[in-house]
């Protein structure tokens, strides 16, 4: 009876699926410890390093692209600024040239005007001088002619000397008036 119970108890312990057996606990611990050790010391550091490198490579690529984009942007802005400056410069030059041209034309026009006036004035002076010279030589010629004419007249009648003199003067005056009217 007692032996029977003991056997039953032994069977019970052997059969209870919730009671762990010592050897299995030991084997399980060792097996897991090995797995853990390899993961911990070798395999995961290995893959983590590679994942980190990959991340760095990808981020490096992205950073590089970003840097290039920034550079391209700055170059574009620089270029645009230069272009605007050039346009501005060209406009300024054109304006300046226009102004200079206008000034030049005005100056030349003034010069032409001045020269024209000079020429006209010189012409007038020349004409005046010629007229005066002509008038004086005419006056001399007329006097001589008159004297000659008077001599001839005197040859015939000298008593009318005074009257003839008046005739001459009047004649001369008429001449002058005619000259005045002609001018």
């Amino acid at each position, binding site marked *: 009876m007692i032996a029977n119970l003991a056997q039953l108890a032994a069977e019970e312990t052997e059969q209870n699926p*919730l009671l*762990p057996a010592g050897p299995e606990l030991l084997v399980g611990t060792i*097996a897991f410890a*090995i797995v853990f050790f*390899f993961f*911990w010391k070798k*395999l*995961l550091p*290995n893959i983590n390093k*590679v994942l980190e490198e990959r991340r760095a490579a990808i981020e490096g690529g992205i950073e590089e692209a970003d840097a290039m984009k920034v550079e391209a942007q700055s170059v574009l802005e620089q270029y645009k600024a230069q272009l605007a400056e050039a346009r501005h410069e060209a406009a300024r030059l054109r304006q300046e040239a226009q102004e200079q041209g206008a000034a030049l034309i005005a100056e030349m026009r003034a010069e032409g005007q001045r020269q024209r006036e000079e020429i006209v004035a010189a012409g007038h002076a020349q004409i005046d001088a010629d007229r005066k010279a002509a008038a004086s030589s005419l006056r001399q010629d007329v006097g001589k002619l008159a004297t000659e004419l008077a001599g001839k007249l005197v040859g015939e009648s000298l008593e009318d000397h005074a009257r003839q003199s008046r005739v001459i003067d009047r004649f001369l005056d008429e001449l002058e008036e005619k000259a005045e009217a002609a001018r």
Partner: protein
Amino acid sequence: MSDNGCGFPAPGLQSFLFKPLATVGGFEFNKVMLLVLITTVLVIGFFWAAFGKAKVVPGKLQMVGEAGYDFVRRGIVYETLGKREGEKYVPLMVSLFFFIWIMNIWSVIPLAQFPVASVIAFPAVLAAIVYITWVALTFKKHGFVGFFKNVTGYDKSLGAVLPLVMVIEFFSNLVVRPFTHAVRLFANMFAGHLMLVMFTVASWYLLNSWLVVGAGVSFVMTIAMILFELFVQAVQAYVFVLLACSYVQGALAEHH
């Protein structure tokens, strides 16, 4: 095989007991132990092949390994513990996950056909490792008094019910939790194995009886159960690791 009258050899506990394959100096080496050792070799072997010479541009094997590693690391550890706190526990959780998963998968591998985790010793060892980690961490983080406050869920605002809550929490955290942690895995694998054995044996048994159609049904059920077990095996490995992470998180958390 027990005989219950009709001659059907219903599978029972004897399905989980093995005669020693070899005895070395009084140490009885059985099939389950062999499977555990093969599990170790397989897990390390696979990840050695995948990560041993890891490259920045991965090969196929490394890609598969990385996917598994990433699943545990990101999907379980980072999700529960956060990236900063969790990084330290990644090796433990990755080891646990793949060790348990492969142990479970033996259930449907021809010739082996036995989930190692259905022998309580193996889940118990793993649960004990998590338990010790948790206790040590809680002591380290909170000190002696803090440990008891953390374990008992000490919270002044509870008032009169506080003593009751403390007793329940203490018992639940320190005694029940490691037990359920191990038994959850064990019982799922145990039951799964029983179901598989039962439908397999029933297929044979019914083939020789007048209910031949039943054999077909039973065989279909065997196939269905194998697929279902494949799912349960992965889920149980996942749940075990997820719980381990949440215990660690409880240890790291400020006591509430």
